[in-house]
């Protein structure tokens, strides 16, 4: 079994699917000859030809619009939006069209597409290369939303997303492309190769959408997180010496309520962590779900640790990023209450 980083795992998912299914096509800005600014589609054009892997004009709305038409024809487009910050020009096509097509046509037409897009900060990208807009999409009925935290999941989830007959917005935390990152930006970089999830099978496998993963079982407090924050939360639990149960949601919509509910009912405490801005973020929905399902079991207020409600600032990136110190503090607050 080869060792893959997240980029290679995602590339492998597309490779496997293009091999198995002629209808899978890949396109987006710079994804063709060059293989994408993060190299996630590298080699695919050479292998599958220009009519299945190609560059597009810089028009995210056009990418989505044409992808929907291709989906209606019977293809399975996997498109890249170069940064999640640039998905907004495609918003109408995603929300009013991709998400609504099956419903409004009562099942006559649908758009089985995947929008891959790098999200999150920690690379000094400033406010337009760092956003985590997943909370905007989880509010849109008809879209599925996914965010993996490691190479193994990334491949399995991307394959499941491509095989899914509904539109999926697939967020790739760019800070994780080349290695796990626990928020200690001042420590040496780690590579995926020494992480167990880099053992990625070459062939086809899927991780069912809608299923969370308990990445650290524990008894004291439930931590709900996804993407880069999974690694931050693992580090924080360790540093705080708290026996936290850390749940990597993986799919945000549909979310795995049963796993969340079972855990919080057991621990009685819950900390929610995401990198996106707080107000109206996906953490708010998680908080609402937890209090609706586990009200009588909660022993302490649910905590949210999130990005601040400001744009992602270039120089003060590490003041913005919800790192292990803030998560540790929240875990302690959650545990303080008797």
């Amino acid at each position, binding site marked *: 079994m080869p060792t893959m980083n997240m980029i290679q795992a995602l590339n492998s998912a597309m490779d496997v699917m293009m091999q198995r299914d002629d209808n899978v*096509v890949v396109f987006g800005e710079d994804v063709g000859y060059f293989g994408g600014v993060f190299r996630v589609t590298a080699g695919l054009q050479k292998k599958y030809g220009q*009519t*299945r892997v190609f560059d*597009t*004009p810089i*028009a995210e*709305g*056009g990418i989505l*619009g*044409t*992808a*929907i*038409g*291709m*989906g*209606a*024809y*019977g*293809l399975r*487009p996997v498109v890249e939006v170069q940064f999640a910050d640039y998905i907004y*020009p495609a918003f*109408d*096509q995603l929300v*009013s*069209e991709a998400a*609504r*097509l*099956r*419903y*409004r*046509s*009562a*099942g*006559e*037409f*649908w758009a089985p597409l995947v929008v891959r897009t790098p999200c999150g900060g920690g690379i000094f990208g400033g406010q337009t290369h760092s956003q985590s807009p997943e909370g905007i999409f989880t509010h849109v*009925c*008809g879209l*599925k939303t996914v965010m993996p935290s490691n190479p193994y999941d990334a491949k399995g989830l991307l394959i499941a997303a491509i095989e*899914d*007959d*509904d539109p999926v917005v697939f967020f790739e935390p760019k800070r994780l492309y080349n290695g796990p990152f626990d928020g200690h930006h001042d420590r040496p970089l780690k590579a995926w190769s020494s992480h167990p999830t880099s053992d990625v099978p070459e062939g086809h496998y899927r991780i069912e959408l*809608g299923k969370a993963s308990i990445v650290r079982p524990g008894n004291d407090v439930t931590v709900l997180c996804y993407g880069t924050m999974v690694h931050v939360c693992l580090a924080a639990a360790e540093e705080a010496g708290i026996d936290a149960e850390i749940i990597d949601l993986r799919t945000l919509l*549909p*979310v795995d*309520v*049963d796993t969340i509910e079972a855990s919080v009912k057991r621990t009685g405490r819950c900390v929610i962590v995401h990198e996106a801005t707080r107000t109206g973020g996906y953490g708010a929905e998680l908080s609402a779900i937890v209090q609706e399902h586990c009200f009588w079991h909660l022993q302490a207020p649910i905590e949210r640790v999130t990005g601040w409600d400001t744009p992602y600032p270039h120089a003060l990136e590490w003041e913005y990023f919800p790192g292990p110190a803030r998560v540790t503090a929240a875990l302690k607050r959650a545990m303080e209450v008797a």
Partner: protein
Amino acid sequence: MSKKMKKPESLRLHVPEPKSRPGHSSDFGEMHLSPAGAIPRPAADAAESKLRELPYGLIRVLDDAGQACGEWAPALPTETLLKGLRAMMLTRAFDERMMRAQRQGKTSFYMKCTGEEAVAVAQAMALHPDDMLFPSYRQQGLLIARDWPILDMMCQLYSNSADRLKGRQLPVMYSVREVGFFSISGNLGTQFPQAVGWAMASAIKNDTRIAASWIGDGTTAESDFHHAMTFATVYRAPVILNVVNNQWAISSFQGIAGGESATFAARAIGYGMPGLRVDGNDFLAVYAATQWAAERARTNHGPTMIELYTYRAAPHSTSDDPNAYRPSDEAAHWPLGDPILRLKQHLIASGIWSDEQHAALQKEVEDQVKVAGREAERIGTLGSANPDPSTLFEDVFKDLPVHLRRQRDEMLGA
């Protein structure tokens, strides 16, 4: 530099205004109409650089006497012409009755295409039956020309239990996969790049089917127009992109969409795409232009944009009263006439039709609408035969996820 010497001029904002408003007499100004037959017909594989005058002319076939003139005149069998006439007349009769049905409270909303029947009908007929159509809400004629039962359309309008869209969509937002008619969106313009994507897919799969799409003059300002034009030219997609310039977008005349400084067909040459400008009330011209564009697309010569120059004779929708913003007799003064009357005149001039036959056909289509209408009403009108409430949660996703199952149960009180 002289500009530094002169006292600078004050800048002024120009806001386009139509030639006439309510209370004044109708005026279409110096509308430039090429005479019928005046525009030469280039070969369908002509280089775009040879076609740059086309957007500034107006392709017309039928002259004032109903004769077909010039190179664009298509040699159509009588059968085709009569089928076109019938489809246009049926479309108009259907519109009349459904407008009345809305006024009678049988449905919430309706939109007519009166005066624009030639666009959808002639274009549907000039395409192959398996070419894919991405319409706006004003091309009901496509369905009718493809012989889709008007009863089925009525059931959609009434959101009754036989509505194939399960009462979900606003009336007129049809979807008919069986005849290649794509689901209509309420969001203007979105279908334009989708049609391009469908056509690209057809090319990727080395299929032979092409796509066509329709938007209004007003909608050309939306970003989807630009995306469709760009992607279509870049990938030479086999698609026909139609702009139905019916002079109005609700209360805004076409100048507000940019029709004052250029024709809509001229947009096409900016991308290096042929742009045809066609008399949209001339069945033969519309047919011929569509045929030309289809041939071009089918032979891998890429996309064409067609501006169909016509007039929205009816209100925008049942929610609209055009007397508030345009002279009420404007439709009557539209210089390009009525598409049904013009085709009728041509058929009579050609000796294959008569006033009597026309009157009989008129009665026939009205009866057809009446019969279907009664049947639709028997099944149910809005609110009288609602779909099963539990269907409300279906088709959001292919399979019902847990949270929607729970909401459904909550609604049903389970």
